[in-house]
């Protein structure tokens, strides 16, 4: 059983999707989806334990050994990320039931959950596969499901947002496909480990260079790295909130993982950063991202859109960590992938609770919300504190590590800019918190109508994430330990 875990990781959720379509029942399909996700989470956990125990796992899918067949390659980096994806997906699914019941007509629920399952399958597949072409296939599986999930939003602008994302996302994926084609032409293999071996000796270095450029741009689009983030704000704003919570915690994070895998494992750090000066692209993109997008977030009037821009900004921090190409920087980036996923998912879940009760997320009309929804507001504040990087939240762990890594490199300006952007986060989170806490004017404002909290089925999953985030905020050395190990493995290449 245990040696088949890598296949089970993908299989259960993938098979559960058609089952959902067949049963056509809202509640049952939700239960199937949730069960499959929890199982996937358990598998991922087992995999992580196994990897930490015995080192990287190479699993030949269908018994076809590496160059002929597709291989799954699992080490600490992707075991942790798969666990993150499955975990966030499970928690958000638990939360989604009430939220989705209200936002989406019941007859469509089974399709919604089927799409969700496919999306999770794709995301997990991207992460654990060791085959470059397989990455593209899973990428498209998850992307197509994502377009569908976004279009479930009850605002009609969800449709156009989804369409725009479809066009941009397909272009991004096609770029990756082109890149993989050139890699195949240059080396004659699609297996990542073989690629890593053959790329340095390849006769056609120009093809490798072209492949590198296409893959970089393609993945940067999918990861919504500034300035290729145009699809993200609308998609996050108009998608059903549960979907946004799920995507914010997983989709961009998985793309960032692909970035790591290609830059560090396949092409190798020497090639990406030594010869091609990749940080010449990544660093300006990262800085522009976290500064400009934080600034833009300050001026948003819709809570979801504000958080969407903040997501792009936070991705900037992660990319900044990567661009140092040092162990400390990579560890900071990886740990922030996990931490930001936790924070952002719980923030969007809080927004979902607000929308469930208030019906909108227009920031200026949320005044005195604390009186009506204290638990939701507290969750929002705790997670918001994480976004700022206040101690005892996960945000502090990543920010401290990131600034420390920047100072280690001697990149003082970067450290200063990160701090400035943190202060912008103080403004955009503080503004919302202030509106939640106080009445806008001396008289009037919302009459206090007593408590009207979101249902427990939404509050409990939200608090589950908040508590996990707090735990890792206090015992940050645990996540950092895994991140450090992962960074070492990435810098060391495939073993």
């Amino acid at each position, binding site marked *: 059983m245990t040696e088949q875990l890598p296949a089970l990781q993908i299989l259960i959720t993938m098979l559960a999707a058609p089952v959902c379509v067949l049963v056509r029942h809202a509640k049952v399909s939700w239960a199937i989806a949730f069960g499959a996700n929890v199982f996937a989470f358990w598998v991922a956990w087992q995999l992580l334990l196994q990897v930490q125990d015995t080192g990287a796992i190479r699993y030949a899918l269908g018994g076809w050994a590496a160059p002929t067949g597709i291989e799954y390659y699992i080490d600490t980096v992707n075991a942790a990320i798969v666990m993150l994806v499955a975990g966030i997906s499970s928690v958000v699914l638990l939360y989604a039931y009430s939220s989705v019941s209200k936002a989406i007509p019941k007859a469509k629920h089974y399709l919604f959950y089927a799409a969700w399952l496919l999306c999770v399958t794709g995301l997990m597949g991207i992460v654990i596969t060791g085959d470059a072409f397989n990455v593209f296939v899973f990428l498209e599986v998850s992307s197509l499901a994502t377009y569908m999930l976004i279009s479930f939003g009850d605002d009609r602008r969800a449709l156009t947002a989804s369409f725009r994302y479809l066009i941009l996302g397909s272009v991004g994926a096609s770029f990756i496909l082109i890149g993989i084609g050139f890699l195949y032409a240059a080396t004659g293999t699609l297996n990542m480990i073989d690629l890593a071996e053959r790329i340095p000796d390849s006769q056609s270095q120009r093809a490798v260079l072209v492949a590198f450029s296409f893959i970089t741009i393609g993945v940067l689009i999918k990861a919504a790295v500034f300035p290729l983030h145009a699809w993200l704000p609308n998609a996050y704003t108009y998608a059903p909130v549960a979907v946004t919570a799920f995507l914010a915690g997983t989709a961009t994070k998985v793309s960032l993982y692909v970035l790591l895998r290609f830059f560090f494992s396949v092409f190798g750090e020497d090639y990406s950063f030594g010869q091609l000066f990749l940080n010449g692209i990544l660093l300006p993109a990262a800085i522009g991202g976290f500064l400009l997008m934080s600034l833009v977030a300050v001026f948003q009037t819709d809570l979801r859109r504000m958080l969407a821009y903040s997501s792009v900004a936070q991705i900037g921090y992660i990319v900044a960590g990567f661009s140092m190409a040092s162990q400390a920087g990579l*560890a900071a980036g990886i740990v922030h992938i996990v931490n930001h996923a936790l924070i952002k998912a719980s923030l969007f879940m809080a927004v979902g609770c607000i929308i469930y009760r208030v019906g909108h997320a227009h920031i200026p009309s949320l005044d005195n919300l604390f009186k009506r929804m204290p638990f939701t507001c507290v969750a929002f504040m705790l997670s918001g*504190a994480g976004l*700022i*990087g*206040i*101690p*005892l939240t996960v945000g502090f*762990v990543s*920010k*401290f*590590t990131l*600034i*420390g890594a920047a*100072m*280690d490199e001697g990149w003082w300006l970067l*450290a*200063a800019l990160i*701090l*400035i952007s*943190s*202060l912008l986060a*103080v403004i955009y989170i*503080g503004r919302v918190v*202030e509106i939640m*806490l*106080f*009445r806008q*004017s*001396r008289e009037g404002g919302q009459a206090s109508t007593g408590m009207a909290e979101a249902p427990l089925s939404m509050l409990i999953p939200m608090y589950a994430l908040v508590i996990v985030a707090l735990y890792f905020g*206090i*015992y*940050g*050395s*645990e996540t*950092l*330990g895994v991140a*450090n190990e992962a960074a070492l493995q990435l810098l060391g290449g495939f073993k």
Partner: protein
Amino acid sequence: MNPLWALVPPLAVIPFILLLGEKRKNWREVSILVAGVALFLINKSIYNDLMAGGTPQSGEIGLLADYTLKLSAEPMGVMFGLLASFLWVVTTVYSIGYMRGHHEINQTRFYTCFAIALAAVMGAAYADNLLTLFVAYEVITISTFPLVTHAGGVDAKKAGRVYLGILMTTSIGFLLPAIVWTATVGSSLDFVPGGVLADSGLSNGAMACLLGLFVFGIAKAGIMPFHRWLPAAMVAPTPVSALLHAVAVVKTGVFSLLKIVTYTFGIDTVVGSGAAQWFLPVAAFTVIVSSIVAFTKDNLKARLAYSTISQLSYIVMAALLATVMSVSGGVLHIVMHAFGKITLFFCAGAILVALHKSEISKLDGIGRRMPITMGAFFIGAVSIIGLPPAGGVWSKLLIAGGSLDTGTIIWASVLMLSTLLNIAYLLPIPLRAFFKPDPSLAPGEKATLQEAPPACLWAIVLTAFTCLLLFVYPQPLTELIGLIQWR
């Protein structure tokens, strides 16, 4: 005793506060008093351990890869812990009278946040390293925000914005990078006698930059231009102003600075690199200017707030002078000023509850209606000014004496000038109260006694008495300071 125990009473009392709530408020307040006494006894036990030559310390939590959260007791921290826990008990007694007399709302939330803030202050007092200190520092900022904005109106919102804005901006913008920088160049983040930066290889200029980040990053120490949060915080109920914004919060600021100078830089490094000379003038400027500003304020709490800013900068100066004598004086001044200032704030609150007056110009003649309160006010003022027979004189002498070691009399003269200003803005208040005629009384009519609630009075008398006691019997404090390892 493990200093972790010091976090237990204030945290353990929170469920009681929430459960007992408004309906059984007598029991709620009893539970807080019990917690306060327990906390004081725990601190006392840590003090005994320390005096017996032990080094009480807690286990560690790995917050970051190489850095941990850890508590341990050293003389400064023990003194601060004892002070804060003792005054917590006194303030609780006082606020029982005040909050009821003033019919404040949301008392449960008030006491809860108060307890969290106290727990964080204990964490700061016993912090074993910079990281723990920073965590506690930020928790204090956040947990006191609901207290500052307690009234909930538009003014409270504005004040809250200034409060959180300045404290957050400085702590994230300056203090955090300073700590990360220390982690990068120093041998560790731990508080070690003699500091961790001695072999850091930082140039004198870089050292000055780092010190500057700390001095301005710790805005709780109230150094200009980051002092405006303190007057803003005065919209809070008086017990908050008294315990937190005259003692716990602001003293956490100067306490952190003293600890950083002693245990992170090491006083020799501060003196040797000449880093402090850039910031001493700023502290001196703050001392003088805020005294002058205090002079212009008619609102009693605002005047006391600016007086606090000025007094805090004494301690900042003491830290930056970085001689054994001056830093000892700074540590002592934490205690001396705390008792003096809390007395003054208690009196201000008592006047507000009993007579509903907050402006100094309207206090004429009230000494005959509130003789005990105004008598205590006089004692507190004397202690703040630094005159015998109150404790404030000792710390001021030590700081001034320490400043002479630097070979210039500038800093000592700044202190003396400020003393004159103190006299000018503090003493007229009791003098007015006792010697000017009461305008609301017809000539010849006799004033009726109109004192504050007894709970308030007890607290006031106790702190005023302690001011006097510390003049004749400062030995326990000086013994404790004698235990500080400077190198």
